[in-house]
């Protein structure tokens, strides 16, 4: 359903170069893009594909250290590459607006939201202050923000992430631009909040007939939002087609592989029936950070050897805190953690070397989890040397073995620094470091959420293979239910620091669910372009996200 209207943005042969190692390297290698008025185009691809760079180029903007070379960017008849900086500035904010990934980082924390909202209309003398303010409230109402009259007078930190992202969309709308660029606006949000933002963005873009470029790496999301989809790979276009056509009939192999990512599924294992004690047993644990409120409230669950327990929940539900209690970083205020039936000392400082060895951790952000100034050989080698006392040739062999295990060529990676690796490779090194200790139990804290789907799948397959080979138990913390579906054996659902439901995966994914589990499950976007429309019809527009989770009836039969 391509809308045949005027062309708004026409990019021809876009080339962008970045400066690295004292030479200019092509980042974008000749992209063509045509966007009509009122059309929403989805840009999709893995990180490093150049999605955000193209988004910025649509405003005629090249980030520091990059430059646009002999290309043509024509916005509504105006050539942006040859226009003066002053002319380009006149467009930004008034006719082209930008919504960034992290609204929390993009709002100025020192000013009220509405002051930042009205800045652009006042600057361009489009509206008087009071008019702009009333318009802001109107937009807030359209975006279904609670208390639209009042919310603008709060500071950014007083508003939740999902609300802030909508406020940012409202701000982008403040001058009624012709084009809005959304740069991964929902990537940092929970699934339940994501729906609110998606439906709000979709409605408002429809209402004002604004053209939009929607950048994301999540196919299911882009399927809900875009009229056409353009797939990018390493700065080059793979293919472009209307959303339905693309979903039903992708042409290129790369696109097909993107579509097929969610295919991986490890066979479900079951608890041993011969009475083996659980490897890790969390018993009635309460925990709180110094002086604060209770973050965990009576949390109990068991993890059996060789099995994967996925802990799911929105951010702030206490998933990571549970991991910190198990590893001993945060001693619980009540309850205990048992390891093979023996109590684990609550503080990691009191644990013996062998106890520490048994329980390893893989982190979400591989960038901060690997010391940038230490070579790969030492990052992996240190735990091996530390726990097993390996030296010299034995140590080198062990490192080679570990690198083989995570499917990286030892000779090539042995002497590198973390900065010389890609995101997926860094995560693999994180896994190798955990394996080097020869543990029986590994906590995986959102290990795939910072990665692209293709890379993430590779990591999941690797983890699954290692589990089978080494009989490892995983505690898999995630908010992505697709990951849970593919790797978990048992699922623990958490909300507000409590375990709301737990059980084997197959039971958890078949109804009846606890209402919260139900909400989580139904909020995961699907590849069907009508999914959001159908869902909103079922639930009603005012019953998504926080509103929906607040409406859970405490007397429901499944709530115990």
């Amino acid at each position, binding site marked *: 359903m391509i809308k045949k209207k005027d062309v708004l943005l026409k990019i021809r042969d876009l080339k962008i170069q970045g*400066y690295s190692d004292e030479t200019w390297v092509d980042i974008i290698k000749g992209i063509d893009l045509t966007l009509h008025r009122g059309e929403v185009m989805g840009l999709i691809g893995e990180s490093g594909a150049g999605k955000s760079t193209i988004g910025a180029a649509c405003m005629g903007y090249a980030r*520091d*250290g990059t430059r646009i070379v002999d290309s043509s960017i024509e916005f509504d008849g105006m050539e942006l590459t040859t226009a003066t900086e002053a002319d380009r500035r006149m467009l930004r904010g008034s006719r082209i607006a930008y919504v960034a990934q992290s609204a929390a980082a993009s709002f100025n924390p020192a000013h009220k939201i509405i002051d930042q909202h009205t800045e652009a209309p006042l600057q361009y003398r489009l509206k008087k202050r009071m008019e702009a303010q009333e318009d802001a409230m109107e937009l807030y109402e359209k975006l279904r923000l609670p208390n639209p009259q009042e919310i603008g007078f709060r500071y950014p930190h007083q508003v939740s992430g999902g609300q802030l992202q909508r406020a940012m969309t409202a701000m982008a709308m403040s001058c009624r631009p012709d084009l809005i660029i959304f740069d991964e606006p929902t990537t940092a949000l929970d699934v339940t909040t994501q729906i609110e933002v998606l439906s709000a963005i979709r409605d408002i873009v429809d209402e004002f007939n604004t053209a939009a470029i929607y950048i994301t790496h999540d196919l299911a999301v882009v399927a809900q939002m875009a009229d056409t989809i353009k797939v990018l790979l390493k700065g080059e276009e793979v293919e472009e087609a209307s959303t339905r056509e693309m979903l039903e009939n992708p042409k290129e192999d790369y696109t097909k592989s993107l579509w097929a990512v969610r295919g991986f599924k490890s066979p479900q294992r079951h608890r041993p029936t011969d009475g083996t004690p659980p490897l890790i047993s969390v018993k009635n644990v309460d925990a709180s950070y110094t002086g604060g409120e209770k973050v965990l409230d009576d949390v109990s669950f068991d993890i059996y050897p060789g099995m994967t327990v996925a802990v799911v929940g929105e951010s702030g539900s206490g998933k990571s805190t549970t991991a910190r209690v198990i*590893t*001993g*970083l945060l001693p619980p205020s009540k309850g205990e953690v048992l390891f093979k039936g023996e109590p684990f000392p609550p503080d*990691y400082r009191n*644990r013996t*070397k062998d106890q*520490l060895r048994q329980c*390893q*951790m893989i*982190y979400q*952000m591989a960038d*901060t*989890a*690997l*010391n*940038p*100034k*230490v070579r790969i050989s*030492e990052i992996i080698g*240190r*735990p091996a040397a*530390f*726990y097993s006392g390996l030296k010299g040739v034995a140590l080198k062999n062990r490192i080679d073995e570990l690198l083989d295990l995570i499917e990286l060529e030892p000779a090539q990676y042995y002497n590198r620094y973390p900065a010389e690796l890609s995101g997926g490779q860094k995560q693999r090194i994180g896994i190798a*470091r955990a394996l080097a*200790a020869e543990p029986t139990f590994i906590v995986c804290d959102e290990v795939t959420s910072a990665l692209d789907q293709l890379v993430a799948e590779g990591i999941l397959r690797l983890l699954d293979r290692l589990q089978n080979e080494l009989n490892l138990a995983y505690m898999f913390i995630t908010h992505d239910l697709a990951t849970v579906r593919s790797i978990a054996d048992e699922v623990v659902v958490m909300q507000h620091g409590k375990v709301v439901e737990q059980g084997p995966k197959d039971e958890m994914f078949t109804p009846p669910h606890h209402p919260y589990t139900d909400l989580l499950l139904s909020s995961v976007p699907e590849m069907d372009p009508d999914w959001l429309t159908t869902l909103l019809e079922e639930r009603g527009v005012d019953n998504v996200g926080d509103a929906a989770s607040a409406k859970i009836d405490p007397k429901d039969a499944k709530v115990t």
Partner: protein
Amino acid sequence: MSVFVIIYYTLLLGASCLAAYFNKRSAFLLIFSLTLVSFILGIVGGPGALRSVAIAAGLLALAAMVSYAFREFLIVIASTNMAKELRTAPLTAAFGMFVIFTYAIAGIFAPVIAPFGEAEIISSAFAPADETMLLGADQLGRDMFSRIIYGARNTVALALAGTVLAFLLGALAGLLAAVNGGWFDQLIARTSDVIMSIPSLIFALLMLSIFGGELANDTTSFWLLTGFMMVTGLLVVTAVFENNIIGWAIGLAALVGVSVAFAGFMLIIFNPSEIILVLVVAVIYSPRVFRLTRAVAGNVVVMDYIEAAKLRGEKTWYLIRREILPNSTAPLVAEFGLEFCFVFLLIAGLSFLGLGIQPPTADWGSMVRENATLVSFGEITPLIPAAAIALLTVAVNFVVDWMLYRSSGLKV
């Protein structure tokens, strides 16, 4: 119109035309504005003013050439990795390195370079410069040039020793405070606040009047230095052995040995009053180092890789040495350069007041004071040691600027 003036303008105009022709915008603007300024200068000041402009420009060009050549020289002799780093150095940094290099040579080989001894009286007081005395004589008839050379050795060595000691204490305390936190952090941080709340020069004067004079003898300075080293070493022992009692015993024994040996060694190099001076400087400057180190290390300590290492069961000393230090060297090295300048100026200032390095040891600060009377006769002699101080400070700052720029991660 003299030939000089004609050549002067021809060169300038020629250069600006060339720059304009080859589209070198900034070079053209610079040269042509210099030409315009020269017109006015020429009218107001005559050929003499133009001549000094020409000399200044020549000196600048010479300095630039020396810096360029020195940088290329360093790149050629350095290893591949170092060479890559050095290529990013601006000319100012190369100039700074060249000056530091020159000072180091002068200091190390002072007895070979200097024609006379530092305390040797060879002519009448304030004798003018001649063939044997390049810069003339000072108020007692000692050779100024020789004293400048020896001064490089005395003043710089003292400042260096002071800075190193301040860094040892401050950086260790900062790292430990960042890793341990809690009461330990509070205790050290508040102590350093107390020291920093006293103006440094006043504090130095106070300490020097207590420990100077009678107390500035071999025994006192020996024990003071040993004590200082014991405190510093105690921090290391805490980090290395933590709760291991046997380790503590061995560590303490080793510590006493090392401290005594170090104090003995220092006594061979410096005389007692100089050691007191070094200690005073170290105590005054260590809180600043502590603050910076704690802030830098504090940013590193919260990273996930530190958590991973802690969960592995690593000791504090490993955390500091292998995980934190490599990630905070750049700002620390830059801070070392900056602190060195401050220490250097403090020592020179104290010597100027007569409390620092004692005569007849040559020292730039006291040389300025001793020859100060000459200024009223229009002689520049007292300004030469002052210029030596200024040049080194500027040079170190040039190098530090480059390092700060690199560590700040600004790369465009």
